[in-house]
């Protein structure tokens, strides 16, 4: 046994023994490479899949079964559908931030157009260590440029996402890219290699030595030698991707009947792409590596099979349409080569010319070992839950606290990021970035879609189950705040090393928490991805189950933004204004005061659903002029964000801040919105609806003037803008 090779593909000795007994012989080097890649965490989900049965995955609008296709598909009505998925590119971005992020975007785009759908939106959920560190600044700048560099070039708008900062992400940033595609239900393509005798057509870029062992690299912890893994990071060519995108969408829209399958080449390249496609169809495949066009000389079969060169797709045409398909790609100036064919023997056979260099049943690489890990609840949680916030004196200068929050990294405006992304190309973006969710119209339809990503990892770290439920609830609140109905979820499970029992606990509880909320809110999980082993020598990341959510609005014309109009009345919905000290749990405010994350997060999902339903009903009754989710920084920050989106002030000096000003102003209790309405008459209807549904609320005040007056706070809008608009610039320039 070649232990150096086993280490390279991150295969344990037990796994090797399992492979030997499945094969009934010793595997050769290429076979170890193939199986190692597909059994890696990144491809095989061997630590996370045993948990997936928790997820609710079905609903009347769901068109695909999870795992059967590259992304989940949602029925939008009138023969249209949306597909979406989120995927991580964390480890490559830690080593080479620009290309890591860029190829993350490229990869998720291919997942979408592999289904024949036109990508219409990108979102990015990012995490970094604090910006006072030079390396973190470098990673931040590189990732943001990479996301923009790729997305801008392919002409798909980047319409949303989030960025959060925490020490635990230092050296291990998270880059989760989500893509949404739209198309006709009839044009949905499958990623299966059916029909023995059909050719395997490799289209797009030539194959090079880049990205070999990328899937493996994504499945181990980052250590001090991580820099040496730079060759495992791929290099993107968004120009070629754009051509591939157009060709594949044309194939789906115009010549659906020419092909049986279309599959992207992602992690583990040709190996996973061809084997997964055959596995889906219950067929076999034969590939001759000599037929694979290469960009480098003297490549071995091993290198060809495991290369992760970007911008490649595997097309499985019906053999009678092979020439037509090749011609279509040639017209888009893309090379297309037959590299093998579909067989009926259930085997993966790799040839190098005449010689068979690997051969085994498809069922072996697609049957990774599954590990149920020992889970242990982190012992420090009880102490953190019982943290006595009464020991922190209440704020004596809430205005200064608010300014500080508006300028702090986790809250300050993201404008300097999203204005580096083309968020308008394709002429669909109705609600632009900067609010809760982005809304896109669908040309030719009244309906629109709302999209968002969310995850407050602080709360997940304090209580993985509740925190993960909150991530889903908050994503849904973002969707609802635009007047859209939450429909489905994609997730990206970013965790540390799952072989550690406390991390296994976080992972398991988070999956259960996501499932709790998705069940309650009626938003099934339709696709997802797991990124484990997010650890550096310093420690593991905060558990970060990023949630991507898609919602539907009946008329995109009716979308709500967070910006109210002059003299609108603002109402806090979901709770009274005055809050108890418990609402500070895990808040940005209290984390800054304590210097660590503490408290016991809480959510009542029944109540959450009720509040969301109220907002949608009120919107339907045309009673709302704006709405905003209350999250990081509490009600004070939510109100500030709303009025800063206008050029007006807030007149709400009379609110009752209760016994603890800090909790009422900056506490982050769940299930709350700020809504705006334009008349006393509408207000009284809203009040009645709220009382009938037994939802607590407080009337806050009016949008007017040029000062921000909220209880004890009295600030000039200019001073607030100065902090809010320039926060990231100041942190980056410091």
């Amino acid at each position, binding site marked *: 046994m070649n232990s150096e090779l086993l280490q390279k593909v991150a295969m344990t000795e037990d796994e090797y023994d399992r492979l030997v007994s499945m094969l009934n012989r010793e595997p050769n080097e290429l076979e170890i490479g193939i199986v190692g890649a597909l059994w890696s965490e990144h491809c095989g989900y061997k630590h996370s899949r045993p948990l997936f049965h928790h997820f609710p995955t079905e609903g009347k609008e769901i068109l695909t079964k999870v795992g059967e296709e590259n992304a989940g598909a949602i029925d939008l009505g009138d023969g249209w559908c949306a597909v979406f998925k989120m995927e991580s590119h964390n480890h490559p971005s830690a080593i080479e931030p620009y290309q890591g992020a860029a190829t993350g975007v490229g990869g998720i785009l291919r997942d979408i157009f592999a289904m024949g759908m036109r990508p219409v939106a990108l979102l990015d959920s990012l995490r970094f260590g604090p910006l006072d560190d030079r390396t973190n600044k470098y990673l931040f700048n590189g990732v943001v440029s990479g996301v*923009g560099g790729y997305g*801008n*070039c392919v002409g798909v708008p980047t319409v949303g996402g989030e960025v959060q900062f925490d020490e635990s992400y230092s050296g291990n940033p998270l880059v989760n890219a989500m893509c949404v595609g739209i198309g006709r239900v009839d044009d949905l393509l499958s990623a299966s290699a059916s029909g023995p005798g059909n050719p395997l057509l490799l289209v797009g870029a030539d194959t090079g030595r880049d990205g070999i062992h990328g899937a493996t690299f994504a499945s181990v912890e980052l250590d001090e030698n991580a820099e040496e893994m730079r060759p495992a990071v791929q290099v993107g060519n968004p120009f*070629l991707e*754009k051509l591939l995108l157009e060709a594949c969408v044309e194939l789906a829209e115009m010549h659906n009947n020419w092909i049986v399958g279309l599959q992207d080449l992602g992690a583990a390249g040709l190996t996973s792409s061809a084997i997964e496609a055959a596995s889906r169809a219950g067929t076999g495949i034969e590939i001759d590596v000599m037929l694979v066009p290469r960009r480098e000389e003297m490549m071995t079969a091993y290198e060809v099979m495991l290369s992760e060169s970007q911008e490649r797709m595997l097309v499985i045409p019906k053999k009678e349409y092979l020439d037509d398909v090749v011609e279509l790609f040639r017209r888009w100036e893309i090379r297309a080569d037959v590299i093998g064919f579909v067989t009926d023997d259930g085997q993966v056979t790799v040839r190098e010319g005449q010689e068979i260099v690997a051969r085994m049943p498809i069922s072996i690489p697609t049957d990774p070992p599954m590990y149920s890990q020992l889970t242990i609840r982190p012992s420090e949680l009880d102490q953190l839950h019982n943290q006595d916030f009464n020991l922190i004196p209440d704020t004596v200068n809430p205005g200064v606290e608010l300014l500080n929050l508006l300028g702090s990294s986790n809250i300050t405006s993201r404008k300097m990021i999203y204005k580096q992304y*083309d968020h308008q190309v394709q*002429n*669909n973006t109705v609600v632009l970035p900067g609010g809760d969710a982005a809304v896109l119209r669908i040309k030719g339809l009244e309906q629109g879609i709302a999209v968002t990503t969310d995850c407050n990892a602080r709360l997940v770290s304090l209580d993985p189950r509740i925190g993960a439920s909150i991530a889903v609830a908050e994503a849904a609140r973002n969707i609802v705040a635009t007047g859209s109905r939450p429909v489905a979820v994609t997730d990206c499970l970013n965790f540390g090393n799952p072989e550690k029992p406390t991390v296994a606990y976080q992972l398991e509880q988070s999956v259960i928490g996501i499932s709790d909320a998705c069940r309650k809110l009626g938003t099934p999980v339709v696709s997802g991805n797991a990124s484990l082993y997010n650890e550096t020598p310093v420690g593991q990341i905060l558990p970060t189950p990023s949630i991507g959510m898609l919602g539907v609005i009946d008329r995109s014309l009716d979308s709500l933004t967070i910006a109210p109009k002059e003299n609108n009345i603002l109402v806090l919905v979901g709770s009274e204004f005055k809050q108890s000290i418990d609402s500070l749990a895990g808040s940005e405010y209290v984390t800054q005061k304590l210097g660590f994350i503490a408290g016991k997060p809480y959510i009542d999902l029944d109540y959450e659903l009720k509040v969301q339903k109220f907002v949608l009903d009120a919107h339907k009754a045309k009673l709302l002029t704006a709405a905003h989710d209350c999250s990081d920084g509490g009600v004070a920050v939510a109100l500030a964000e709303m009025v800063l989106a206008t050029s007006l002030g807030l007149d709400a000096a009379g609110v009752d801040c209760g016994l603890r000003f800090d909790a009422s102003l900056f506490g982050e209790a769940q299930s709350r919105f700020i809504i705006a309405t334009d008349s006393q008459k509408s207000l009284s209807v809203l009040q009645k609806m709220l009382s009938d549904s037994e939802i607590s609320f407080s009337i806050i005040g009016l949008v007017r003037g040029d000062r921000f007056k909220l209880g004890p706070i009295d600030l000039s809008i200019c001073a607030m803008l100065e902090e809010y608009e320039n926060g990231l610039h100041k942190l980056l320039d410091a």
Partner: protein
Amino acid sequence: MKAAVVVFPGTWSDGDCSWALQKIGIDVRKIWHRESSFEKNELIVLPGGFSYGDYLRCGSIAQFSPVMQGVRSHAENGGLVIGICNGFQILCESGLLPGALIRNQSLQFRCEDTYLVPGSNSPFTKNIGTGQVLQIPISHGEGNYYADKQTLDLLEDQDRVAFRYSSVMGEVNKSSNPNGSSRNIAGIVNEKGNVLGMMPHPERACEGLLGSEDGNQIWLSILEEYL
């Protein structure tokens, strides 16, 4: 009126331009970059995007595309040509317009609304009411218009500056310049006035639903002139 929207490999505003033009009743056909024949009375649109990936330099490879021969002779014969964003870069690289578009002063890509004060001396802007300020977004990394002093003076003397970046009130100053362009120039026309290049995307500002309808003023100005 008819329009021909040119598609280079890597172009991505072809769909948006077609959508916007069709919306106000102009017949649109798309032209793949390997073709090169145009009808005499067609408006040629060179849309935004990253033609040939903008490798080497923005617009520099596209100038050698077969379609550019047709564009050149169309322009010489007095036909209308509008280059938007990457299209403007291609027109400068092809020598159909003077100057060059260099990296934004911020060294970053910028996608945001800008406000534009139109000039008067071309069919593209002639019929836009005086004193109007147009709200039209930009989306580029290399939109910083540069030319030597002599060229800039000439452009101004001949009233060939089609658009300048301004504040919402129409003040042309440094703080309303999003990319460092010389003299706030956002768009220029050739000597004959039949070729316009502009960095902002009027095709993205043609519907109230998307935030602005001001882009339509350009198409309407052309229609009024040629109907």
